[in-house]
Structure formats: C-alpha cells, structure tokens
C-alpha cells in the first residue's frame, strides 16, 4: 500500500515536471493545421519538421506559400545567447575562484566588511539597480554591447559564485597548502597548481549555476540589448507573438532549441548542479 502511494507520487511528480516540456515538444513537431484542430491528441498524429525548417532554413513553405524564414534573426540571437552566457560564466568563475580564495586564505584590510557587503547584495533585486545602471551604461556607451551585458551578468552572479567558492575552499584542509608553502612555493603558485585542481567539482557547480542564470535572463537584456547586435533568444522568442498572428509552432520549436543547453546540463551534470544548489542553500 505504501509502495503504491510512493509510485503514484513519483508518477505525479514526473508528469508535473516533464508534462509541459513534452507538450511543447509535441507542439513543435505538429503540422500547423493540426495545431488549430478541435481534436485534442496527446500523441502527435503526424510529425513535421516544418517549424524547425522556418528557424533553420533559408526559406520555407507554409500552406503552399514561400515564407521568409527567421534564420537570420534566430541564428544571431542564438549566437548572442551562447556568447554572453559563456563570457559571463568564464569571467564570473575566474574572478570568484581567485577572489574567494583570497577571502578565505589571505588577510588584508577590509576583507570581512567587503565580503559581508558583497553577499548582502544577494538580497538586492536586479531591478532596484537597473535604472541608474541604465544611465551609467548609456554614459559609458555600453548599452547593446557584449561587454556591457557581460559586466551586468557578472555583477549579478558574482555574489553567489563567491559564496559557493568560499564554502569550497573552507572545506579544504589548510595543511595541503602549508606543505607547499614550506617547500618554498608562492601562495599564488599553490593556488593555481594545488588548490584549483582540487576545487574542480566546486568550480563546475559554480559554472553551471552561472551559465543557467545567464542563459535564462530576460529583463536585463530586454533593457540592455534592444537590437539584434546583442539580443539573446529569450528576448527574440516572445517577439514571434507580436506579429499579426501568433505562430505557436514556431515559438515552441524555438523554445525547444533554447531548452537544449540547460537540458543537456541537467542530464549529464546534475550531480554538480545539485551539490552546488545544496551548498548555496545552507550556511
């Protein structure tokens, strides 16, 4: 009886978590005229790659007419998403890897005040600083540039990354580093050659969390990436709505493409992800 309840619970949980994603996938593979039928089919009756063709093809046909594909915009936004997310991840992880170690192992003036101040900004929502930030970025000519967007992402994700990396270094025995110092190795050399390789899983967790946050950003690029020169997928996809008719097949296909990188991360690296989340949640 209890076993049955357990399996039932698991089934509900799986359905709740995967159901909407499954439905989006089915929609993206259903021909347009079947999408607007009154009949509800939980399994696709016939599968078409038409919607993906519109995203990736030069031109495509829809109901006999040749239509302009969205590939030029789509490819650009995809590239922007990948580039800004990777840049933000690399910069955040590198700064946090060195900075957090300094906060844990080195003594320097203002260290503790600074750390408290930075972690406290976790409680400051992005929009509270967004308006002055907008004016700063306009003044610096950084609106709609990769540098500007990356810097904003880094400033948003750095506190959590520092927090995670600090807990990683704190859990490492000091004796390892001390042994290297006694052998005459410099502190920086010890960090790079001995500490960082051991911090691999922690760095990985930090990188995954940062990448996922950057990949999903919407409000920041909505303001700071107004044109296609830096506009990411998350801002482009909703714009498919505002045409004279809403192309749900296209939107779901584009959504599925945007889902692929995070889904792959969850599939193959969920161990690091969960560790990171658990470490981030506890004190």
């Amino acid at each position, binding site marked *: 009886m209890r076993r049955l309840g357990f399996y039932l619970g698991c089934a509900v949980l799986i359905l709740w978590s995967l159901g909407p994603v499954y*439905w989006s996938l089915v929609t993206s593979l259903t021909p347009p005229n079947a999408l607007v039928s009154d009949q509800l089919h939980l399994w696709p009756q016939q599968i078409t790659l038409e919607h993906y063709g519109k995203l990736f093809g030069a031109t495509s046909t829809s109901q006999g007419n040749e239509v302009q594909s969205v590939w030029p915009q789509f490819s650009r936004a995809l590239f922007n998403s990948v580039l800004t997310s990777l840049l933000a991840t690399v910069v955040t992880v590198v700064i946090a890897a060195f900075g957090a170690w300094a906060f844990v192992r080195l003594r320097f003036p203002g260290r503790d005040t600074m750390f408290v*101040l930075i972690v406290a900004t976790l409680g*400051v929502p992005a929009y509270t600083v967004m308006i*002055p930030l907008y004016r700063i970025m306009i003044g610096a000519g950084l609106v709609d540039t990769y540098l500007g967007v990356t810097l904003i992402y880094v400033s948003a994700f750095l506190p959590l990354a520092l927090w995670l990396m600090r807990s990683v270094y704190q859990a490492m025995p000091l004796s390892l580093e001390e042994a290297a110092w006694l052998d005459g190795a410099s502190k920086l050399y010890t960090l790079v050659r001995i500490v960082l390789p051991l911090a691999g899983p922690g760095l990985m967790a930090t990188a995954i969390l940062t990448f996922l946050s950057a990949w999903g950003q919407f409000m920041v690029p909505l303001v700071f990436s107004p044109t296609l020169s830096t506009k990411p997928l998350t*801002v482009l996809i909703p714009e498919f709505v505002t045409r004279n008719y809403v192309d749900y097949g296209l939107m779901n296909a584009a959504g599925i493409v945007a889902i692929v990188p995070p889904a792959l991360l969850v599939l193959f690296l969920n161990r690091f992800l969960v560790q990171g989340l658990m470490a981030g949640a506890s004190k």
Partner: protein
Amino acid sequence: MTSSFVSKRAFLGREARLGLWLSAPIILIMGGLVILPLIVTVVDSFFRVEPMKMGTPFVGLRNYIALMTDPNVLQSWTNTLVYVVISVTIETLGGLAAALLLNRSGSARRWLLAIVILPWCLPPVVNAIIWLWIYNPSYGLLNGLLQSVGLISENQVWFNDRFTGLVLVSVVHAWRMMPLTAIILLAALQSIPFTLYEAARLDGATPWRQFSLITLPLISSGLAIALSQSTVFAFNLFDEAWILNGSSMDTRSIMVQVYMMAFQNLKFSLGMALSILAMIASLAVSALYVLRVYKETRFD
C-alpha cells in the same frame, strides 16, 4: 592564519597586497555596477528624475506619496501579494512532498532529481511560452483536458477573469521555482539521523507523529530558507506575468509596474522609489519567516 610570509618592507605586507589584487575585480564590478547604482537609486528617489523634463529638483517624499495614491501601483501590490501567497503555498507544499519522495527513492534518486530539477533550469521566458500555449483559449491543452473529463463544457478564455489569471501566472512561477524548495528541503531531510525514526517506531509512533515530531522540527531551518527564497522570487515575478499577459492591469506585478514606469513612461525616479519599496517589502517578509520559524522550533 599564518603570517610568516609577510615581508616588513612595504606599507602593506605581501599577503595583503596579493589579497587586494585578487579582490580588486570584485570591488570594481560590485562597487560600480551594484553598490553605486543602489546608492544612486536611494538618493534619486527623493528627486524628480525624468529624461523628458528639464532639471532634477529635490522633491522630498513626494515620489513615495505619489506611489501611495496611484491606483495602478496599488493594484500591482495586490497582484504581487496574491502571487506571493499562491506560489509560496504551492512551492512549499509541493516541494515538501517532492523532497519526501526523493528522500525515499533510493537508487532512482539521481534520475528523479534530474527530472524534478529540470523546470528550474529552463529559461523562465520559455517556460512562460510553453504555458501560454497550454492556456490558449481556442486550442490549449488546459481547455482540451478539462473538456475531455467533463469539467467544463466550452472553451474558456482564462485571462478574462482577473483571479483566474493571477492563479495561472502563479502556477507557471511555482512550476519553475518548486525544484529549488524541493532541493533545499531534501538537503535538510538528509541531515536527519535515521536512528531517530527507528527509536520513534519502537515507541509505536505513527507515520504522522514521526513526521510532525521529528521531520518538521528538524527541517525547520531549511524550511525557513526555502520560504524566504520563494517569497523573494515571487515578489520579483516579472517574466511570467509579462509573457502570459503583457502589461495588463489584471496580472501586473510590482516589477512589471516598475518596468512600465521607468522604461515605458520614462518616470525614472518614481520607478526607483517603487523598486526600493518592493525590495524592502520582500526582504522584510522573508526576514519575518526566518524569525518565526526559528522561534517556533527552538528546543529550549
């Protein structure tokens, strides 16, 4: 900390200089892009800052007073409050149930965990689009399913009703955020020593008594963290409301209101004042949880 490597030559020792060098990028980025703008936000909220008007005169509390009487702002507060109540409830109950299941799932845990965590990892915008299609008045899955089980007889335009709209937006938000609550609670559950349950079973405690006397008190700190996380995120709800129903007053959250004020109507200082109020409110509510939960579950 060993300081045997500090050289006495310079004003600051070697260690201190290395520390400052390594934290310099952090100071620059956080100082310039978060702390400085935060101070500007606070200061400017007492001035009239609008790019369409000349000058930035000091207006004291007038921005804040204007916010108190603006009907759009008041309705956004109500909407946000409803979002917080509904989504935090769903996330906490659902997250607790998911965590209990995950905690008992043994060898399948890794895969179940991957499935549960997936919605949290997806871009919120894409989530909202997936649900927008599910909620579609003519061809949506929700209408189809409810009709096929006979709960409704004809297609509903869900966002015609304000409260239904608020619930539907909250569901999308809770769908995304529940995994975080589940993970936090799972971590708390895993820290409970198994022997406690064995002892309780020997004393003949029912599963419910075990849950309420052992599990709940021992995960209370995790619960406090989860509650304050989900409250802060629900306060900041923007993407879901924006994608599902645009700037409609029915579902406009306080964040959408800030965005409209600042970037559509270009009333910068009003937007800044409102964003400060929202930040204070969300932090205050989450602090309240933490205090409450800690107080109620003290053992002494």
